[in-house]
């Protein structure tokens, strides 16, 4: 559990209009956590793609189903849990969108973008309990950032 974390929780009805609500909350949380604008945008996009997956693929756009977002702000990272009421999927079986034969595919880039923009991405699917994805972005403070050599 997140004993040493600040927690923000949001419950959304499965309506694509709520994706922008999720983005707004994400921007506020990631700003509060101390991420710069570039990282805020990456986190925002990763949540956007995850919430769309939850609403569209997980809950099949059924407004009676919900998506739960839980933001856990730690000193060194932000963990975001996004849970739906769908049947789950195995991200290891998704085609690589960068392969030449997939480059002109219309779909299949969402999970790739999430992996690219976040430091960790996990999918936990349980039969009858929906799917939960966990996104982690580490905060690069002065102490954790790689040292830069400067000067002559």
């Amino acid at each position, binding site marked *: 559990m997140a004993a040493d974390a600040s927690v923000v929780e949001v419950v959304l009805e499965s309506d*694509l209009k709520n*994706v922008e609500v999720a983005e707004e909350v994400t921007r506020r949380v990631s700003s509060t956590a101390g991420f710069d604008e570039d990282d805020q*945008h990456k986190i925002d*996009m990763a949540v*956007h*793609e995850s919430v*769309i997956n939850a609403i*569209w693929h997980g809950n099949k756009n059924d407004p009676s189903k919900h998506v739960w977002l839980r933001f856990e702000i730690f000193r060194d990272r932000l963990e975001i849990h996004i849970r739906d009421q769908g049947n789950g999927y195995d991200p290891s079986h998704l085609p690589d*969108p*960068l392969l030449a034969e997939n*480059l*002109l*595919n*219309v*779909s299949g*880039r*969402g999970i*790739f*973008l999430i992996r*690219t923009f976040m430091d960790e991405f996990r999918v936990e699917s349980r039969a009858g309990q929906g799917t939960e994805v966990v996104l982690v972005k580490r905060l690069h403070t002065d102490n954790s950032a790689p040292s830069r050599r400067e000067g002559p």
Partner: protein
Amino acid sequence: MSMKATVRQVNSVTVVDMSGRVTLGEGCTQLRELIREQLGKGNKHLLLNLADVTYIDSSGIGELVSGFTTVSNQGGQLKLLNLTKKVHDLLQITKLYTVFDVHEDEAKAISSFEKSAKA
């Protein structure tokens, strides 16, 4: 804010000034219908001006790819103009930057259609 698009004709090129969000749902549907409509009118040289596109997601990128393929299959060309840094970075990450013909100058973009039509 959903997507908005205005269409203008410059010589043989149909320039589409897009703004707002190109995301799953309304934005992608609008873009798909707009391209279909222009092809239906016989306009096969399409230049999408993305200068004021504030947000594009994986579905929006997919819609650009779909438009590119559809227009190419009908013997036309779809090119991109004025990418924002975010859109530029997304196309780089997804390796699509080299697939699309991307321009920063509208006049040069327009003439690139004419050159390829003459070739």
